């Protein structure tokens, strides 16, 4: 590392001359995003004002740097996505009382669309909603666990977790104790999944390591300065699986389901049917320990096939950082693939599914290795940001150890986020440099949630930054291509059809398959609607739904460029 040197007079003169030349040739006025920016950061302008408190006091408690998550969900059923942001708090004793302790926040989306255009505005409704959680929050999962038609929240913490039941009147009730779904260990990501196909959503909670404030370790960076410890200095803690009894309560089936037979430092979790047998499986990203691919045996138990499937470690058998997960059919071959974010120096991995639950590490041939090598990635997902019919990728990046170039600065872990576009050849190309100024902003990215916030037919992104402001990236690609959104109504059970496999059949083009889910990414929950880019043609021949309990239906009277609501029982047998 080199220190700053005082510029000589000659150098200052040269710099001034060069600056004059640059300004003469530039056309864009300073401070304005270029007219062709793919995304524009609009959080503050829309009233989405939130700054995450990581509680850092100089003791380098590991929990400080891992949070937090964000949820995009329509809590009031007014047709637009609201935002829930998880908050942290100081750990240990700082000796100083805080006048207004920070809490997690719920922002109601007051989107209006009229002849004058769209007006996006958020209102903080946290207190009225009863969601002012004061804790060292980590992540959030969203689902209608009690099948009353309203989306509920499960918030994970370093400490006790919370289940909030949506009462349908703009408020939530803390039903954690009644539901018996607390887990007092350090929980991170969570996912709701109907693993036994009984119509009730069960709950999988990942847990991280046995770090405690009193047991904090002392770790250093390369020059002997204090730094955060690697999770390897602590012991991984087992995850939990709670079975939904259908009466508002759950029972812990971790051991009975076989989940306790493997252990890792869990950070991310997602659901899918990775071996195509009709039963929903779970994929868990474990930090510095092998990832787990829990294959549902159909009898209430799971087997970890991570290692033998090729999705647990890298090509030389070493576990990688493994924080965020994007699960989905990126190559339109009908099965679900996995993209996992890792630490700087490891590169992010693309595990391509052969259809039977065996995976190939394909990061290099698909062009994702080299551009990700310098980054530590967290929140991520597949999204067709330009609606061209091919899945693209977004990653929220942020360091966990000192970034050498930022030594001596406040928050020296900042990185820029990345956007990758899938080309017609199948490879990915990083387009961050042309995606807008938001992609040059250096932050400590963690959670990321995806959904069409302004209901204009393209996917937007909300990023939760550790110790920093929330970012809302509004997609500006507009209506260059056609699109379709689908929301399922699966009443009387699993009302939103979580876990359903939806195929959008296009005339003269492959069917595009999407899983209905809110899980994946990192510590976050995305829109329960699925969004499909259709490319230049909106010609559809139908939509097929494979419901999680096994039934299949098909609808043919469908058109693009709209939200389609499909109710169970109103389709035809395929």
């Amino acid at each position, binding site marked *: *590392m*080199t*220190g*700053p*040197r005082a510029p*000589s007079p*000659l*150098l200052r*003169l*040269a710099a001034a*001359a*060069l600056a*004059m*030349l640059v300004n*003469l040739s530039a056309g864009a006025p300073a401070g304005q995003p270029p007219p062709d920016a793919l995304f524009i950061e609009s959080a503050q302008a829309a009233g989405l004002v939130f700054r995450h408190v990581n509680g850092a006091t100089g003791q380098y408690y590991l929990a400080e740097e891992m949070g937090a998550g964000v949820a995009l969900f329509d809590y009031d059923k007014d047709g637009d996505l609201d935002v829930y942001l998880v908050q942290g708090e100081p750990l240990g004793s700082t000796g100083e009382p805080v006048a207004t302790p920070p809490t997690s926040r719920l922002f109601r989306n007051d989107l209006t669309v009229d002849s004058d255009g769209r007006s996006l505005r958020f209102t903080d409704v946290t207190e009225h909603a009863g969601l002012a959680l004061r804790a060292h929050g980590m992540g959030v999962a969203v689902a209608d666990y009690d099948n009353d038609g309203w989306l509920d929240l499960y918030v994970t913490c370093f400490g006790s977790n919370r289940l909030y039941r949506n009462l349908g009147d703009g408020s939530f009730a803390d039903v954690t104790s009644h539901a018996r779904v607390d887990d007092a*260990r350090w929980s991170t990501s969570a996912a709701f999944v109907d693993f036994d196909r009984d119509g009730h959503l069960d709950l999988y909670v990942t847990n991280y390591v*046995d770090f*405690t404030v*009193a*047991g*904090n*370790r*002392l770790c*250093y960076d*390369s*020059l*002997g300065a204090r730094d955060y410890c690697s999770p390897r200095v602590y*012991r991984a*803690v*087992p995850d939990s699986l709670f079975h939904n009894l259908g009466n508002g309560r759950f029972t812990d089936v971790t*051991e009975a389901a076989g989940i*306790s*037979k*493997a*252990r890792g430092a869990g950070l991310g979790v997602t659901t899918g049917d990775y071996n195509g047998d009709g039963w929903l499986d779970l994929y868990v990203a474990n930090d510095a320990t092998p990832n787990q691919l829990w294959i549902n045996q159909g009898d209430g138990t799971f087997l970890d096939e991570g*290692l*033998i499937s*090729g999705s647990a*470690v890298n*090509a*030389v*058998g*070493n576990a990688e950082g493994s924080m965020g997960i994007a699960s989905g059919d990126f190559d339109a071959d009908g099965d679900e693939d996995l993209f996992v974010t890792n630490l*700087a*120096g490891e*590169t992010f991995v693309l595990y391509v599914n052969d259809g039977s639950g*065996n995976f190939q590490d394909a990061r*290099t*041939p698909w062009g994702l*290795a*080299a551009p990700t*090598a*310098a980054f530590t990635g967290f929140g991520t997902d597949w999204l067709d940001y330009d609606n061209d019919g091919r899945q693209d990728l977004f990653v929220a990046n942020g360091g966990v150890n000192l970034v*050498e*170039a930022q*030594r*001596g600065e406040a928050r020296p872990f900042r990185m820029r986020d990345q956007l990758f576009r899938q080309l017609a050849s199948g490879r990915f190309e990083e387009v961050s440099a042309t995606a807008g100024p938001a992609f040059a902003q250096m932050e400590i990215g963690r959670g990321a949630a995806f959904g069409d916030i302004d209901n204009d037919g393209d996917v937007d992104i909300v990023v939760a930054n550790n110790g920093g402001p929330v970012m809302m990236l509004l997609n500006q690609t507009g209506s260059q291509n056609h699109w379709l959104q689908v929301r399922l109504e699966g009443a009387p059970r699993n009302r939103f059809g979580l876990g359903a496999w939806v195929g959008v059949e296009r005339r003269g083009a492959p069917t595009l398959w999407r899983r209905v889910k809110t899980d994946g990414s990192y510590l976050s929950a995305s829109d329960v609607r699925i969004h499909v880019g259709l490319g230049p043609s909106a010609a559809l021949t139908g939509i097929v739904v494979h419901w999680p309990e096994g039934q299949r239906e098909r609808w043919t009277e469908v058109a693009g460029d709209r939200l389609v609501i499909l109710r169970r029982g109103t389709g035809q047998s395929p």
Partner: protein
Amino acid sequence: MSLIVRASIATLVLTALALPGAAQPGIPPLPHPALHLFPPSARESVAAAYERAAERSGDAGAAGVLGSVLHAWDQWDAAHDAYSRAQALDPRAFEWHYLDGIALQRLARHAEAAARFRRAHDLSPGFLPAHVRLADALLEAGELDQSGVLFVALIRHDATAGLGHFGLGRIAALRGDHATAISRLELAVGLVPVWGAAHYALALSYRAEGRRADATRALERHAEHGPSWPALEDPVLASVTALREDAVANLQRGLRLADAGDLAGAIAAHEAALALDPALAQAHANLISLYGRSQDWTRAEEHYRTVLDLGFGLDAAHYDYGVLLAMQGKWKAAADAYRRAIDVNPLHARAHNNLGGLLEREQEIEAAAVSYRQAVTSEPLFRLARFNVARLLLVGGRLDEAIEELEKIVHPRDAEAPLYLFALAGAHLKGGQKEQGIRWAREARQLASAHAQHGLVAAINRALDMLK
């Protein structure tokens, strides 16, 4: 040409003249280390290396030594800058290309690193570490044909034959030719049986060929051997590593010596670390168990007290102290230490388990059972703790529950398993299931024999004799 353009060109020329090293056009400038950010123990050596390189601006070796010093301190950007200067001053000195390649790899600039390794290899074809790194870098970059040629050449050397076969195996697997991959990878593990990565690659190729049982066995070898890698002597890199002699470097050396079983060496390295930095909490913490293992109770306790004063890693310190108290037969004090570990970290499975053992010793059987259960809840894969749960269930006559617990721990069939299999045999025999009991006992005996556990074999034989 406009006035502005002429003025800018003039200032640019003047600027170029003002920059360090500007007397040598095309030679990258020296990095200027910010000495105040280095620990005191490093400043003198870094400053001396910089001053020498600055004074001898045409000396590639001086620039390269500065790069090496910065490299030793993980300052990859600055090391790369210094190495770049050294390469420009003396393009035929292979070591600067080689070391720059390593720095670039750490900066995740793999394509540039490969170019450096190629240059180093071209200059010194007999230097195997550069050859290996080049082959690996090309493989990672997807240049399979080029890397294949290099791996074939590596097979000719005893020191690198395994690496050659492994590389060729990976290439074949990437091309979908798993039959060839298996042949190569089997050769690799034949040459280096403890190579976890090779066993893993072999497992995936077995799986691709439908040989699931072979894949499972290969994964077990991978789990057994972990991330170990064939050692290849690299005197160039070793000379860089040796430049760093700070407390952390000594601590890391101490850990390596401890892993290798050199207790005295590990202690000496840890004490050397503390001589440089008395507040290095991890060194104190490690010395609790290291002195405990050498039965120097006094020194072990001194370091334990120091860790408490420093206030870091308290659960591990209390636990290790508890172990060494138990080694001295100080049961009550040991139990108190385990309880303190649990206070700090309620999920400390080993503290729970060991506390259970002490409670059992005092005939507090119910409390012991609770502790063992806590250990299992904290760490479900902790087989010894689950065995202890099962033992107490057996003692209490709860045979079905005991059998259920024991069945969870008899896999994998490793060195721990014979004891658990024997216990399972005993549980069945106690329940009147003689045939099953004998079957488990025989399997336990066979596995114990394979692991040279003669005492256990004798005990099983006595038990089987009594059943005749």
